[in-house]
Structure formats: C-alpha cells, structure tokens
C-alpha cells in the first residue's frame, strides 16, 4: 500500500486519495489550437523511475497534491500542494 504524506493531514493510506495524472503538463490556454490541446491531453511519457503526478486527497482535506513517486518501487520523494499559495503556507509552517 502506498502511503502519502499529505501536507495538511499527515501520512495516510493511498485509498484516501484519487490518482490524478501527469503533474508536469502545462495546459494551453482555452483559446489555444486543437493541436496544442491534443498534445496536452493525449501525449504521455511512460516513465520508469521518479515522476511527478497529481493526487487528490478526496477522502481527506480535498487538496490536490504533486507527488514525486517512483513507478518502479512506489517510493515517494516529495509531496506538496499543487496550488502555489498553499505551497507557500506549507513552506512557512515548516
């Protein structure tokens, strides 16, 4: 079982979270072209090793998180809020 250290709630089972997806995608603006959107939505790297991915603490504080997880070992290197303002709050409270 993966355990994720939620910055707000503490370390919890992965069953409290929902997997989001690739956290490194820069979604284009809404008026961007179909081509740009196609790239953002359908093209994914299949990474062996550490990747940044989003998780939603759906059965907890409802925060969206960026989790740095190894796809090989499930080892988690870092967890931080997706929202930059929340990131600052977490940093300041350290």
């Amino acid at each position, binding site marked *: 079982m993966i355990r994720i250290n939620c910055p707000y709630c503490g370390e919890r089972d992965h069953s409290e979270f929902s997997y*989001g997806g690739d956290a490194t995608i820069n979604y284009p603006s*809404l008026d961007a072209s179909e081509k740009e959107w*196609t790239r953002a939505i359908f093209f994914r790297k299949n990474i062996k090793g550490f990747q940044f991915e989003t998780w939603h603490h759906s059965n907890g504080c409802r925060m969206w998180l960026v989790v740095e997880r190894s796809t090989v070992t499930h080892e988690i290197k870092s967890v931080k809020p997706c929202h930059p303002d929340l990131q600052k709050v977490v940093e300041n409270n350290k």
Partner: protein
Amino acid sequence: MKAKRLDNYGKINRDKILSFRWDKKNYTGFEGDTLASALLANNIGIVGRSFKYHRPRGIFSSGVEESGALVTIGSKDRRDPNVRATTQELYNGLEASGQNAFPNVNFDLGGINNYLGRFFSAGFYYKTFMGIPPFEWGRGTAIWMFFEKFIRKAAGMGSASVLPDPDSYEHAHDFCDLIVVGSGPSGVAAAIEAAEKKLDVILVEQDNLVGGDQLAENDFDNSQIKNQLENLGIKIMTRTTAFGLYDNCVVGLLERVTDHISAPKVNIPRQRFWTIRAKHIIVGAGAIERHIAFNNNDIPGVMTVNASKHYLNRYGVLTGKRIAIATNNDSVYETAQQLSEAGANVTVLDSRTNFEIETNKSFEIRKGCVPYNINGSKKIVSLDISKSENINKSETINCDQVLLSGGWSPAVHLLSHRGVKPKWDYSNACFLPSDSKENITMVGSSRGLWNKNDCIASGIAGTTDALNRLGISKTNYFFPKPGGWKNPIQPLYEVKYKKSRSKSFVDYQHDVTTDDVRLAHREGFISVEHLKRYTTLGMANDQGKMGNIIGLSLMAELLNKEIPEVGTTVFRPPYTPVSIGALSGRNVGKHFRPLRVTPMHQWNIDHGAKMIEVGLYQRPWYYPKENETLSDSCIREASTVRKTVGICDITSLGKIAIQGPDSTEFLNRIYSNSFSKLQVGKARYGIMLRDDGIVMDDGTSWRLAENEYFMTTSTGEAAKVMSWLEELLQTRWTDLNVNVTSVSEQWAGVSVAGPKSREVLNNCVDDSLVVTNNNLPFMGVTSTFLKGNIPCRIARISFSGELAFEVYVKSDFANTMMDLIWENAKKYDGCLYGLEALGALRVEKGHVTAAELDGRVTIDDAGLSKMASTKKSYIGSAMRKRGVLKNNDREILVGFFPTNLKETFNAGTIVCEKNNIKGQGIGRITSVTYSPELGHWIGLGFVKGGLDKWKDTNLVGADPVRNKQMNLKVVSPHMVDPKGERMYA
C-alpha cells in the same frame, strides 16, 4: 506406522480430554493437540488421497508447509475444505473428514488412477482433451469445455460449502514502530531489544503459542517468555499469520479468532484481517525442512525429521516404532537421540561419508547411505537402501516410519513479496535472503542461521539495524554468518533408481513427480516459471514450501547448470491461504457498499414509496396505490403531473456552492454556454465538457448574488464534478479567486411540477407574491421563506416540461417541507411521483440524462448545439471541433416510435436499416417509456445522421438478447410540447 501417545512427554493438558470425529468415527485427544497430533496419537496414518493419482497420503509435517494432511473441517454451512490438520487446533466436537476420496480415504475407488499413472503425466489433460490436431484445429476449446467438468471432479481438493457463510469477519488496523514476524529465538530477541529501546512493538506468531521451533524442545518453558514480552509492553498476536508485505512497511495479517473454539460466541468474528502500518519490519519466519525425492517417498508414515520432534516433545506422540531417518545434514541427530530415548528403534542413513558427530550411541548411523525405495502401499513395510555413490540395491531394512531431512529452506517468502530475489548459498544448499533497501530485516534461521545462539544474536543485530535505519541510533552491528552445523551439508535432492517405474514425488500435494519435471524439460518448458505452470509444481495450498527446491535442482541437473542459474519462482502473497470472508470483512450483504438516503427517506417510505437504488442513493421509484403495478402507478403519476401537480424528492442531485469574485469567470470557462450575462436572481442550464470535447455533465447554476452561485449536478456525476472543479482551481487556474464547497448533504430538494404547481407553492410560502409569473419567471431564482419561517431557495426550473419549481431547504427541515407541500398538493388532487414517472416525463420531452450522456456523446450529438457558445473559449471548445467529432455519420439524438403503436421495445435495442440487420447497426435506443400523454411506447436514442436522414424511413429495432424485433420510425426527440408552452406558462 505405529504411532502412540507417551505418558511422560509433551506439553498437552491431559486433564482436559477433547472428543472429535474423523471420517464419521469418534476419537479423543487432549487440550493442546492439533488435529494432526490427535490423529497420530490414535494411530491414524491415512488422512487423505492425493490430487491426481488418489494415492493414500499421511501427515508429512507439523506446520504450515503441510502438503499431505489437508482435510475438511465442519459441516453444512461451516464446511471448510483444504485445512491443514497440522495447524488446526483440536477442540471439543471438532468434525473433520478426508478429501478427494470415495467412499473414504482408506478405500478409495479413485485409486485406480495410480495404476494408470503413466498416462497422467504433466499436461496430460490438456494434451488429451484439447482435440487432436490437425483434425480438430480451432475446435480445441469446445472439446476441452466438454471434458473439463469431469476432469475437475476427478482431480481436486475438498469442496467448499455453497451455503451463505454464517460467520462474521472483521477488518482491523494498527500502527507500530516495529513489527516482528515470528516468535522463535531470533524474533523474541529482536522484540525484547526493541522494547527496551522504547520502540512500540507488535510480535506476530502464526502458532497459538510463542516460541517457534523451541516448542519442540522438551525443556522449553513457553510461559516465561510470554510473561517477559508482556511485561515489556509488547503486543503479542498469536494465531496470526503475516501473509504479505506491501509498500511502505505495510503488513497484512490474518488473525484466526475462533477457529479453535467449539462454540464461539456469535458476536465474535471468526477471523480478523489486519492492516498494520509499521516503520520497520523484522522477519524471523524460520526455515522449512525439505524432503528427498525417491521411489514411493509419499507412503503414509513418511515425515520430516523436525516434525517428529515436535510431535514427540510438544504433543507427546512417538510417531513410529522402527524409524529410519534419511539425511544429508547434522540437524537430525538430536531428534534421533530423543526418539530412541523415547523408545523407538532408530537408524540414521546419512548420505555423507566423512563426518564426525557426537551421539550417545543409542541408535545406529549408516554413513554414505541413502534410501531409494519404500515398500508398502497404505503403510510402510520396509525401506530399500543403497550406498550413496552408486544407487544399487544393497539392503532392505524393516521399519514403519521414514523421516526425511534434505536440508532446510529459509522462509524468504515475505521478503520475496517485496520483489527482493533470494540468492543461492552453496555451502548451506539453500536460498538466503538478499538485503532490502526498504525497512525490512531478516533474522534467525530465515537468514540461514542453524543454531540458537546465532539466532538470538541476529535478532539483537536486526533491532540495531532497525534503530539505525529509523535514525534513532548509530550503532555498529554484525550478523552471524549463515550456517552453524559442525559438518557441511551435502546436497541431496533426489535418489534416482533407474530400475524402477515407481513414482518419486517432488510436490506431494499436486502429485508432481521427478518424471514430470523431466518431461517438462524434454518438451522445452525449461524456465522455472514455465516448469511451474506446466507441471503445477508449487502451485497448491503449500505453494511449494517443501518441494520447490527439489524441482529446481532437478531442472538444474537436466540443464547442466547450477541452481542459481536456473533461478527460483517469485513468491507472492498470501504466505498461507486467506479466506475470502476475511478479505471482504463486514462488506457483505446490505453492507457491501455504503447506503445513501435523503433526509426525507423515511417520509417517502411512510407515504408509500417503493425505493430503487440510484448509484449509492435510495430514491423513490413509484408510489403505488392499493393494487397498482409499477406501470399503473407510473402512468397515473406522470399523468397527474401533466394534469395538475406532482412532487418528487430530488435531493440526490449534487449541489455545489461557488463563491468569490471570479465565480462568473470560472463558470464561463467550465460551461459551454455563456454565464457572463446571467443576472442575479436567475438560473441557467449549462453543459460541461471534458478536456477532450465530450460531454461530462449537465446541470443548473443559480446566481444568488454578485459573487455567489448555487450549482446543481446530476446525481451520478456529483462527486466527479466536485473533484474536477477543485482540480481546475488548484492546479490550472490558481489565479482565480473562487471557492467551491460541496453542499449536497446540506440542502434537501423537492421538485413541484405541473400546471397547478404555482398555486400549491403560493399556499406554502410566507409571501405569496414571490412566486408569481412576474416575480419568478422561467429560470427565475429567489431566496424566501416557507410557512413557519423556514428559509428556502426556489428556482423555476423544469425537467418534466411542465410549469415547475425546485425548492431547497436546509436538510433539517426536509420533513416539514414535504408535509407542507404535500398537504397543499393534495388539495389540487396532486400526487407524489417517483423516478419511473420522472423518467417518463423527461423522455417525452427529450431531456437527456446519464443514459444518453454516456461519455461518448458530444453536444452536437445530443442535439444541444445551441448550448455551445461561439463567442468565448471554454473547457473542451478546441477539442470538440476535432475531425472525428465532426464526422457526418455521428450518431445524433432522436426520438423513436414503434411503427405499430401497439408494440413495445426496450432500451438497448439496436437500430438497423431494414435489409441490413447486423452488427452495431446504425444506432441504438437508450431510454424507453410508455408515454401517458401520447398513449403508446416511445424511446430516446441515437441514429447515424439523425432525424433529417431517416425522417421518413422505416427502420428495424433488433433486440437479439430478448429475441425481439420491431419496426421503428424516427421522430424528433421533443415528443411532447415541443415548443415548451407549458414550461413558460
């Protein structure tokens, strides 16, 4: 075999006699016995029949590795098959029987298979019953399906009860710093060391007593260790198996709570499934003694050496009178001496020629000797032995028992669950655990330590390792070197006697012989993973705990390789079988999934509602009067709504509060239609698309104030929409000042629909002016009070196509609201209506729900192109224009009438052209209802090209599943009041 109970041996409680039944006969045993020890004490040698050949099988071991004594415990709804007699504690009234035998294990008609054995080699069934190529190529599956049921019946284990399980099971959770698996010398030493260093420790032991292999020592005092552990505050969990290790030091445990009790209390679960979250894991799971493959090495009376030591010293049972011990290592000599002291005539055959061992000379040792054949069928008569260098008949010795020790295999299973491959150790002829990067430390004989002092030292070292890894200490430590015997082990896996055709077993439980392994090699199944699947070696309940290494060594020999080059199969959880009941825990029957009810749930039932499940929600389905059927009731309810007024619980809709200065901009981005000009006091129907341009959900948003909206979503998509909005705000549009809050549970909602709905509401609100056509026009919203000063929100929204309102109050006021509106609706001959009538009303109007918006449909497909703004960009606006979504042959929403209006059809019907009824046709029907307004059946669905293409064509509805076919015509989806005159009234 001539086993008997000895008076002055064992740790059983002889004051407490327990009676039990074995194969319909009564026997007795003592408290502290296992079923196996009690059977042995009663000199019962045959306890089962083998999987394939139906050969008589006895008790091979004293623990979880048992591959012979698998029995069925209990009867009727508590019948539990394939239980290891060696781990089943005896209780008063225990009922057990042998398996895979008819009429019984002593005389089994299936035994004929043994004589046909040369045909039943590996892969026999598949080769024979898959058909003979090339004549039956392509037909093999059908042939196999026919024969399979007969084969399954002949070859098998016990049969499970088909009745509902009367027992309850529990899931439990715990946390600790350190979990220690196994309470042998190493585990206990590790636990004590850790507890003294102030760690929070859980000690898990699969046996009912702590002590591990020490329980087989005649002078071992179990209670002293238990007290010491308890005094240190260590949580001891006995009868609990750590069946699997998972990521982040999570350990799965199965606690057998009542499996040893004759009449457990009903409020106690049978088993508990534990999830332990630890910071470090120490595994002292011990080692398992291997047997040796030679002819007829499965005759009842064959056992591992260590098992007989357990039976002697723990249970007071001497398992034989004339005992031959075959070995290749030092571990057997203490046992040999104790057996001979207990009165047995013992001969040790040691395959090694040059070694020194100290004994009291009470038994004979034959150096350089191995057994190659057992004589006897249901019991051992004698043993043929030979010189180890050249297998040839030299002598036959009389004996009634043969004990085997082909070396020891450390229990590396749990570490293997974490993907850590064991490494072969030549000097100890076994796989040893490799180091893990995770916080897992192996101690004791599971890291190949054969003497007690080394085990204790390794336990302490293991805890030091844990403390270091946890950052608590920085202490140097070292583990003792693997091994510990005075003389080295000499590898011995098989004694091959070429002049005989008798079977020589590698895996007792699945009847895998040395010849099967050779056959697999001849046929090219040389990878260990192929070998395993082709021969089923190591695939039974015991998962090859005894026989795997023998199979590997044979394959290595055939390939002219060393064992490590051949490799080993990966052990996966569970270590020992886990019952399905424990996995499901309390999540059975009506607790299978959570139940959601609306605040007026009881009110609905009290007013005659029949309920239906919608997702997790219970919603009113229909409100039958007297003898009404579903259909009668639905027609009456829908007609009443169209004629006067009806009220319906719509609380299950998702409700989201959207607040903040950028709320309007936010809604404008997520909905396909524009929200920028929505006035305060108005609501708007909106459609959300996914990034890829497909419809995600539809609903309404009400502008309550400049920066405040109240959004409703469909029942099924409520959670998804909420997560989606949060994702957008937290990951993509972090500059927007918007807050979203789920308020689905906080508001109770009701729909009041029908021409008389305004008059009804007029009587319900404090200020009758608020619901007039002027004050509350179509899509108008107001916050006001129901009579009794109950704050409420009312919007004039229609799903039914009639003049209609949605009224929301705080959930606490749900019943009061229902009473109030229902009292007034009755005055207008109104009704309560359920989901069935709601469905009929919306299908008549061509309003889409989840049945239509199934994740494949675009706005255009749903005929809602007008809802897609051309003046702004929004989620999905770029992608909805991509080529495949713009094809001319997309399926478009239409209505369907049967050509013969008296006919009916069903949702799921495939729409086809008249002379081309095949495949997926040209469309499908998604929703069907009887229309009270039109007086016949109607449907909603999709057809390629839509209404324009098929308006005047006769189509066919094919329903092959229900064996139906009917003529259809395509009509506009707006089948009743297409101009919406009623809605705007």
